[in-house]
């Protein structure tokens, strides 16, 4: 019984706490916009590193492909 009382009260406290951060932005006064000059310079956009291509499956002397290094080989060749 005591356990249930504590659980119920705790659940209400938790729900209260979880609802508070969501309500804050709605009630907070909007802050004045900073002048454009004070705004920090925008960081240069980093160029995306080139995507490494998985090496093409090597052909074995016998003409069959080696699936050893391929991430998703179409077919797994037996050893």
């Amino acid at each position, binding site marked *: 019984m005591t356990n249930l*009382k504590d659980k119920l*009260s705790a659940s*209400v406290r938790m729900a209260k706490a979880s609802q508070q951060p969501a*309500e804050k932005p709605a009630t907070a006064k909007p802050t004045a916009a900073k002048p454009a000059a004070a705004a920090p310079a925008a960081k240069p956009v980093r160029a995306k590193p080139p995507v490494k291509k998985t090496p093409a499956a090597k052909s074995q002397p016998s003409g069959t492909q080696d699936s050893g290094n391929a991430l998703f080989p179409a077919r797994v060749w037996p050893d």
Partner: protein
Amino acid sequence: MATHVTAVINQKGGAGKTTLAMNLAAGLARRGETVVIDLDPQGSSLQWASSGSKPFPATVKQIGGKWDARTLHQNYRAYRYMVLDCPPSIDSHASVQALQACDVALIPVLPSPIDLWASLRLPQEIEDARRANANLKAFLVLNQLEPKSAISAAMHDALAEFGMPVLAATLRRRAIYRGAALEGVSVYQMGSRGASAAEEIEAIINEVIGS
């Protein structure tokens, strides 16, 4: 004499707002002319009063659109008591105006964690309403209590987390409340079958009017 206005409000649907509002109005009608204002677009109060074989003891009116507390008081000043049955939305125009128009707000809460969580915004809404309606009193009302249920017994402690007064008078889970709605009457009109429920409503009225 100024009309005493009670708003029955909760953003949670199914908390028993209409049941409390209608039976409260029936009890108040024994003390003076009473009007129920159905602010819920679902129109359950109006439906309740219009489906009875016997006349409902209070007048029931439905209003919609834009209105304010002042015009409400003016239009219904002939009544001694007014009960506002609010829609299940605290942000609606009707609910905001109801909190500004009423002397007392009653918030029915079911013994269920889901109902408790859903009602947590109400204390803040009441505080906001007090900026325009400084004398507003608000009480939580425990509804559909089951005396042998552990969760019902745990409710008083849980409601303390709301930081709002809780009425000592409570409503038990009784089939007669649903039966009265079905017959379009109040529990006062249900004879001996409704006597225990009518006592509960009387206890609420005495506590609220005497508060």
